[in-house]
Every structure is written in C-alpha cells, then in structure tokens.
C-alpha cells in the first residue's frame, strides 16, 4: 500500500504545556522530528536532556544510549504499530503516539496495545492533531498525557476528560466489560 514519504509527513508540534495525569504541567520533553534531519543524528550529536525520538532513530541508536534510558522516549507515527516496540516498550519512560489528523484513529489501537499487551506503564502521550472531544476515548485507551496543539485552553480541555462516568467495554481504564459488572448472578 502506498505510504507518503516520511519526509513529507506532517510533524507533530511540541507545545510548552500539556495535560499530564489530569493536571496542566510544563512540557519537559524535547521532540526530535522524523524529517530528513533525522538521518544525520548520532548518539554523540544528540542533544542532552529528555528526548522523544522517532522510532527509526531510536531503533538505530538504542544500543548506544543505554546510559540515558531514563531520558530517552520514543514517538510513533500513526502507521507505526505497537508491536514494532513490543516488549521493549517497558524499558521506556515515555511513548508518544502521533495523530497526524484527528480522523486517523490508528493511535487508539496503538495506545491500548502498548498498555494491555506490552505492559507499558510509563507516560503515554498523545501528540499531533487530536481534538478535545477525543480525550475521553484517548484516556480509555491508556493515554495519560495530551500535548494538545489546538486553539482551546488546557483548562477547558480537562472538562472533556470527564464526559463519561460509565462505559460498556473493557479498556485500559476499566478491566471488565459492563456485562461482567452488572451483577448478573
């Protein structure tokens, strides 16, 4: 299936503030884009501090970054599935999942699988063009951080996290589907 070349793919923004665990906080992570500049990166030239690396860069350099484990995270583009990280997810402090457009819902599956199948327990961050009204779904799929790049204030956004108090399905936030919780004898 034809894929747009990575070089043309839209890059996520990395706003100064974001929502983390239900509060507005400063963004302490730097995002390395996956554009052509990524090809020249090496462990030696990589900036210091906390970095979110494109998957390909991380795969290339991970062996040389073992002493920086707590400050090296990965961001997945929407066509990069959770199994590409697999069990390695557990070694990471942060995984970000890119939503190039809000209609691109692949990241919902990616988030759920990282949490439910690969046991990822660190910060799971939504980046890119998701929208406010997707927050409750995103959080059900395991996202606990939202680097929102739209127009609304983060305080407004927080309200949408609480749109639903009840749900039918099992998901990351709810270990059992409703049919197991209805108290059927």
């Amino acid at each position, binding site marked *: *299936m*034809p894929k*747009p070349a990575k070089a043309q793919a839209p890059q996520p923004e990395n706003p100064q503030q974001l929502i983390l665990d239900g509060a507005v906080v400063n963004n302490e992570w730097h995002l390395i884009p996956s554009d052509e500049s990524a090809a020249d990166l090496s462990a030696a030239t990589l900036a210091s501090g906390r970095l979110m690396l494109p998957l390909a860069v991380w795969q290339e350099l991970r062996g040389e970054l073992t002493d920086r484990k707590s400050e090296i995270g990965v961001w997945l583009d929407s066509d990069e*599935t959770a199994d590409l990280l697999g069990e390695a997810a557990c070694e990471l402090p942060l995984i970000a999942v890119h939503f190039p457009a*809000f*209609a*691109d*819902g*692949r990241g*919902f*599956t990616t988030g*759920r699988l990282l949490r439910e*199948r690969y046991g990822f327990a660190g910060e799971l961050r939504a980046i890119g063009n998701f*929208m406010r*009204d*997707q927050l*409750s*779904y*995103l959080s*059900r*799929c395991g996202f606990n951080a939202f680097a929102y790049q739209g*127009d*609304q204030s983060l305080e407004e956004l927080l309200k949408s996290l609480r*749109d*639903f*108090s*009840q*749900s*039918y*399905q*099992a*998901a990351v936030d709810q*270990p*059992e*589907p*409703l*049919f*197991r919780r*209805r108290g*059927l*004898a």
Partner: protein
Amino acid sequence: MYRYDDRDRTIISERVAQFRDQTARYLAGELSEEEFLPLRLQNGLYIQRLAPMLRVAIPYGLLNSAQLRRLARISRDYDKGYAHFTTRQNLQFNWPQLEDVPAILAELAEVEMHAVQTSGNCIRNTTSDPYAGVARDEIADPRPYCELIRQWSTFHPEFAFLPRKFKIAVNGAQADRAAIRVHDIGVQIVEQDGEIGFAIYVGGGQGRTPVIAERIREFLPEEDLLSYLEAIVRVYNQLGRRDNKYKARIKILVKALGAEEFAARVEREWEQIRDGVDRLTPEALTWAKSFFTAPEYKVLDSTDSDAALAAEASEDKAFARWLERNTFRHRVPGYRAVKLSTKPTGVPPGDVTDRQLEAIADLADEFSFGEARITHDQNAVLADVEQGNLKALWQAARKHGFATPNIGTLTDMICCPGGDYCSLANAKSIPVAEAIQRRFDDMDYLYDLGDLNLNISGCMNACGHHHVGHIGILGVDKKGEEFYQIQLGGSSSESASLAKVLGPSFSRAEVPDVIGRILDLYVELRHPDELFVDTYHRIGLQPFKEKVYAKAS
C-alpha cells in the same frame, strides 16, 4: 425487548449532555466546521442539500409503541410531520433545526433511544432479520447477539475513528433476510453438534465498489463473538487505507490482502485476546437472551385457526391478496407476522407521517404485544398477530394507508432519497419509483410476476441497493442530464450476487418501458414457478439485452 438499566441510562444521558455542549461550542464559533463534522456525524446529524438530517438508531429495527409515539411527536414538533425508514432499519428526520438536535436527543433518551453512531466512520447500528424470534426457519434468535454487539460497539474507545464507516448484520435463520453478505461483517448463526455459534463473513459492501463478503470462519463458538469482532475491527483499524476514502472500507483491505491472509491476521490477533475479559460469560448470554423471550401467546389450534382464516379470505378477494403478500408464516400455530407496506403509489418509499407512526403504535398495542420492527426494505412489521385478528388489523391498516398488498412485488421497491433531497445525486430516484408504480398498477400482473426486488439509487453510492436488486436502477449523469442505467440479477439473500449492467443508459421517460420489455421477456421464457431472478440466472443477460436494445423495425 432490551430495557435500559441505570448504567445504560447514564451512558446515554451523558452523551446527550456532551453533544449539547459540543453544539453550543460550535454555534459560539469555538469549534470549527471541520472539528464539529465527525462529532455531529457520530450523533447521526448530516447536513443535507436543503436542511440537516437526523438519523435515529433503531437497534436491529425493534421498537415499542411508546418509542413510536415519541418519534411521531418529534416529527411533529421539530420536523414537518413525517419521517423516513431507512434500509438499515433506522429512522430519519429530514428537516430538524441544528439548534434543536440536543433537545431531540434528550427526548429520544427518555424512551431509551439515541442517534449514536448512525453515521461517521465508526461501528453503525447492527441490523438483523425483521422476523427474528418468529420465523419458522430460525436457528436461533439473533437479537440477543445484536444487543451484545450494540453495547460492545457503543462508544468503543478504540474504534470511533475507523478508516470508514463499519456495518454489522446478524442473521439467525436459514434464509438470509439481513443482507449479511453486503455488510462489512456478516454474522450468520449456525448450529454444529448441538452448539450454537457463528459463521463470520467480512468485506461485503455496496457503494461504488460493490463486493460480496467472504466467509473467514465457519464456526465461531457463541462465547467468542465479541472478542472475534474486536480482532477483526482492530486489524482493520490498523491496516485499512486512510489515504483515499473510496478505498477505505474493509472490503478493499480484504481484497488487497486476500481473504485467507486477512483471516490469518484476524486469527492471530484473536489468539491473543480470546481468553480475555470479552469472552461472553454464561450469565451474560442468559441475561441477553432474557430480554427476547416469547410473549404470552395463546394456545391456538392451528387447523381451526387456519380454516377460519381461509373462510374469511374466501369471502373477500382484497383481504385474500393482502394475506398472501403481506403476511408471513409464524412459528407459533395460529399466529402470523404482518408487513405494513409504506409503498403505496406516489409516496416516497419508506416515508411515514406522524399519524402513521402513531397508527403503527396503536396497531402494535392492539394486535402485537406493543412492539414493531422496521425492515431493510423500508416497511414495518408487526411480528405477533393472532390470525383471528388479521381481518381487523387489515381494515385498520387500510385506513392508515399501510395495506397496499404489494410486499415483495415489483412495486415494493427500495429507493434512495435521490436528487430531490441528496446533494450527491446524479439523478432523481423518487419520480422513477413513482413512474414504475403507476405503469405497473395491475395487481394481478404483479402477483403473476411474483417475488421481484427492484432497487433504485440516484448515484453510485448505492444507498438504494441497486447492486443487489433483481432489477437495479442507477442514476447517472450524461453530459449534465439525468440518465438511468439498468442492471439485472442482483440479490442480497443467502445466494447473494451483484447485478450486471444491461447496456447504455436511458432517459427517465424511457425507464418504465424498458422495465416492461424486461418483464415481457421473463414472462415469455420462464419455467413454471420460476422467479425472475432464477430465470435470469438460467438464461443470462444476453437475451434481455437483445430484447431491450432491439431496433424497432
């Protein structure tokens, strides 16, 4: 039928509050057109050519009389006093005001209804056989499974932004009356060694690339239904194309990978989750089934009841005709299911007035345990009518315009809204339906033709199911003029097939004559008791082509 408990009510009322807020933000300019679009679509709200259109979900087509009355009231208070039954057993309001939609949703919630996921790129209303629970050829009642699927798919957090819309249908009988082979997933209930389970079909669909679904599993145990569906939709969500909306349906993915490879991927995903929490517990299955138990039928002697009915029929030819075409044999002695026709000549197929909705409610209360079903051919069914009441029901149905004895005949057509309402149309479809109904108004002729589905769509999006009509009519644009292509031989039944194009298209005025020539040839060449579609499959397209395009000499 299924009844909400507090948890269902909470979910639906929180959704109404959420949409109220979204609409307010949109109207205040805080939400862009582009952002509001998927939100309103997931609440059933389209913006159409002339006005918004609100599509209300009728889970597997089942309604009670209180819900019917509420729909009638909404159509009166917020719309122009009528509504439309769709081919996916839903109901549409054609003229609501955007500002009123949150209030309409609140009114629906009061009677345990909603418009959730009736459009948008998510899992839509699950459809089924309108004779579920009463058909003689039923293996098991599909409705408990439909309800479990409804709950599983409602606000599924992972699957609200799929590549494209996603439709599931469940059939529980030998005959497929749910068109499962033209759905993204078709679930066929089967029995194997005394165990109930499902054959699973994927990748069917209509639209501009019609495809008959492929069977990817012969037998899925009952308790694995939801985990298997989850595996299918997960594979699709990850791999379905998102670069071109015309190639985004699951049918394209299944074709691209091949059904075998697609099935293998589903099985691999399923292996990881089949023993998880989505496995249906015996309690959950018993609970779901408890909502669809038989009503309190009287114990009737079938010989007596049949004889009395035959006597009534012999005295009244009109009643006898209606009985023959518009009623359906019931598994319980002395009962029948009745189809109310929304297809009298000159009314857009599927349209009903507020008074008619109330009349269906009254008839349901009086004759059919207070429930009715909407059918995929845009009619309504009262499923549990005592044979001794049929005559009274017929008389009442006649008064309300529901007793046209044309069910299953040429004039009981499926027809999309077409150019009269729809901005995507190439051509009008409702006037074509009416012209055909006027031309073929001789009931004896229609009965002689027997079962015949004629389906009309105003463009290749195929809302009117023209690909699966025995005769399909498709509106096309020919240098800015409305033309119609004729197709033959489609079917959405268990022997599903796609119709083939007859040849060059016709002007609207020519269509009834062309249909006439096709029918003439059928009458001439059919074997005794052979239906139109069977004659077509026996003799093929060519003789029809020759007949229709023969030079007048």
